[in-house]
């Protein structure tokens, strides 16, 4: 927190500008309206699911089921958002997709809060269930998705997708909420120390429950943009579980809970998409992207936690928390 909270944001912004500038100078195809628009649209699913994931991380949990949930939403879309449907039935179809997300969220939250399963185990189970269900509904990519819905989702002014502006607004407001309101503070408190939070009168159960529901709902909205990308009911969508956690962590979220930034998460999602966008321009294999992401996560974890680690090492030996009673502050020289 405090000054340290800015490290990820500044670092990511600098990396985005550096990689962008480096590419723009060498590849004419990069800084075109078409490519930037593509890049931002490709960022959408990851950005949305990572924002959701940040909620789960803030309260000290994980949600790995988002990967299968997005697939499930794409498959659902291939049934509820078919071509040649009326506007009303498309609307109901969209509601159904968000409903899948909300239902999954309630299911996860029930497992975690009421049955007290560790979140990683609970959502791993959900992941498997949803994966199987998706394959049952579509065992191969089929079922076209309504093109007017796709066009609506991809509406852009110039290079800028309207939805991306919406996401930017969302993360700024979310960070203001997280760090400038009492409820935001309460959410962080639950992640930092649930017992203390409860003693202070915070309804910790409700906070954790809602965090997982919001996470799943965000994943289902990410499902819309994933559907717009693949445009067909595919049961095999990329692995958003690890990349969403990666984006949140790169953006400054702590795996122990209580710390994170929605703006940071969005910047990290943009950066990860940027790497995926840039490598083909240099005729480099896309596999490098994955390896880069792995290395970056490790670096980020070490870098962001370094102040704490150093602090812990330094104070660990001196018995921090011991009483500075009167004398005994300093040993005899």
């Amino acid at each position, binding site marked *: 927190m405090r000054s340290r909270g800015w490290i990820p944001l500044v670092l990511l912004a600098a990396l985005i500008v550096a990689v962008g500038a480096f590419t723009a100078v060498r590849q004419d195809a990069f800084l075109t309206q078409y490519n930037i628009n593509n890049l931002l649209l490709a960022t959408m699913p990851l950005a949305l699911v990572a924002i959701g994931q940040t909620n789960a991380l803030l309260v000290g949990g994980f949600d790995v089921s988002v990967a299968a949930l997005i697939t499930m939403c794409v498959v659902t879309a291939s049934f509820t958002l078919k071509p040649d449907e009326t506007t009303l039935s498309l609307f109901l179809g969209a509601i159904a997709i968000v409903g899948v997300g909300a239902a999954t969220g309630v299911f996860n939250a029930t497992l975690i809060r009421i049955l007290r399963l560790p979140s990683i185990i609970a959502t791993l189970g959900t992941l498997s269930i949803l994966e199987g269900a998706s394959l049952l509904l579509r065992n191969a990519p089929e079922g076209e998705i309504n093109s007017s819905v796709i066009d609506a989702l991809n509406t852009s002014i110039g290079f800028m997708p309207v939805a991306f502006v919406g996401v930017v607004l969302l993360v700024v407001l979310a960070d203001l909420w997280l760090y400038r309101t009492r409820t935001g503070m309460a959410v962080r408190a639950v992640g930092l120390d649930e017992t203390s939070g409860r*003693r202070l009168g915070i309804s910790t159960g409700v906070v954790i429950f809602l965090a997982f529901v919001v996470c799943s709902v965000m994943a289902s909205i990410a499902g819309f943009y994933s559907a717009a990308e693949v445009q067909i009911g595919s049961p095999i969508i990329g692995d958003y579980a690890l990349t969403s956690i990666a984006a949140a962590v790169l953006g400054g979220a702590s795996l122990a809970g209580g710390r994170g930034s929605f703006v940071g998460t969005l910047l990290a999602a943009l950066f990860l998409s940027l790497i995926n966008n840039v490598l083909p321009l240099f005729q480099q294999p896309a596999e490098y992207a994955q390896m880069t992401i792995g290395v970056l996560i490790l670096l980020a974890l070490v870098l962001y936690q370094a102040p704490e680690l150093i602090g812990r090492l330094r104070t660990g030996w001196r018995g921090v928390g011991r009483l500075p009673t009167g004398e005994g502050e300093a040993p005899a020289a």
Partner: protein
Amino acid sequence: MSSPGPETPVVLSLRGVSKAFGAVQAVRDVSFDCRGGEIHALVGENGSGKSTLLGMASGFLAPDDGELEIDGHRRRRGSPAEGRRLGLGIAYQTYSHLLDLSVAENLYLAVPAKDRPPFARMAKWAAATLAEYGVDLDASARVGALSLAQRQFLEVVKALLPRPKVLLLDEPTTALGPQEVQQLHALVHERSRAGVGIVYVSHRLPEVLEIADRISVLRDGVKQGTFAAAGMTEDALVAHMIGRPLQQAFPQRDGDGRVPEVLLDVTGLRGDRFGPVDLKVEKGEILGVAGAEGNGQAQLLRALAGVERASAGRAACDGASLDARSPLGALRQGVVLLSGDRMQESLFPVLSVRSNTTIQVLRRLAPMGFLNRRRERRTVDDMAGRLRIRMASVEQPVQSLSGGNQQKVSLTRPFLRGDVKLILADEPTQGVDVGARFDIYEALRAKADEGVALVVKSSDPLELAGLCDRVVVMSRGVIVDEIPGHELGEQRIVEAIVGGRAAKVEA
């Protein structure tokens, strides 16, 4: 303090409450009340049910049976949030702070919605609140960077924020020095004069007798009675707490027939916060280390055990140079440290009594590489009986035992290892109730009689006087006084700690 008359309203009332955790009945049919403006102390040994009773009063725990009323509002079960709404404030012994957040943010989270200022004014409001209660703290400081004493005051302020009708203080002075205790008591008196009912839970009987109007005593989850503080004495309270008078609280010293043979020989040892220290301990001797808290006593013990590094000097154990570069080296030479921080450094809190007991001697219990359960069980039962460990079963996780029984479990290890020559005990009875203390003293003395040397660091002069054969007093990291056995007494030790020689070192 004049006791408020019966006409003042009862602000907290528990009637016939009970609570069990698994097989352990923590509180049985207890009734307790506190009137507005009254300071009602609650005393009892560890594990006597005080914390459970407070937990139920605050709404953190739901009673199995019984009724409770806060300021006239009846409820069966609830939440801490509801308790606060009804007018109950509680300062927890383990605090309710978010160490990662600032003082101001912690206060902001604790204040009820109706008194909460807009977020933008938080810093100013927090500083004003601290000033109102006369607590000198930097509102922008991270709570994790505060001392334990500062955290204690912050905890009390947080409990007072909802302007409670009744304030529960759970061991509020554990982390405080004498001056800070006076400051806290002034704050408590001031609140009680304002009409707040105060429930004061503490181990420190002199403090309780000084501040309380009435005193209730718990033993084994059952209330032993409520007494007016005015006519009460420490001895009488202890008798109620342990159910027997406090005589023969220390085992018989029997070291006369001992042949003096030096086991531990320390010369010029220096380390973090202590040194140079010269020290000799004989086989079969219990050496006490006294001193005001934080004068290098703990560091000396830890350096001898290889947990911390010494920077200069020599130490020999049983004639051989002591390898104290790591705990393993010291252990190989038969040096065992009983850490002052049992749960962090000695025990595996979630593992059972059985596992914690035998973890260092598994090889002996596993003849073919596989554990012989029957032999292990026999060993554990034998130790549990010998040290009088009170538990529901040997499979109970040690974290659910009381402090005294936890300490006994960590004591089983030097008993089971046959090769122990030196035991370094850091506050062996900290957080241990009176009854269990005697068992621990007896166990330590039994080891000494076997020829083991013991170094016991304690902040309790009475304990050192009763248990030890000889006591050294440390100040600013060096030994300033040595008290031989025939001079030992509580007063002599206290005088040495606060007295002239210690002061001279300071100058």
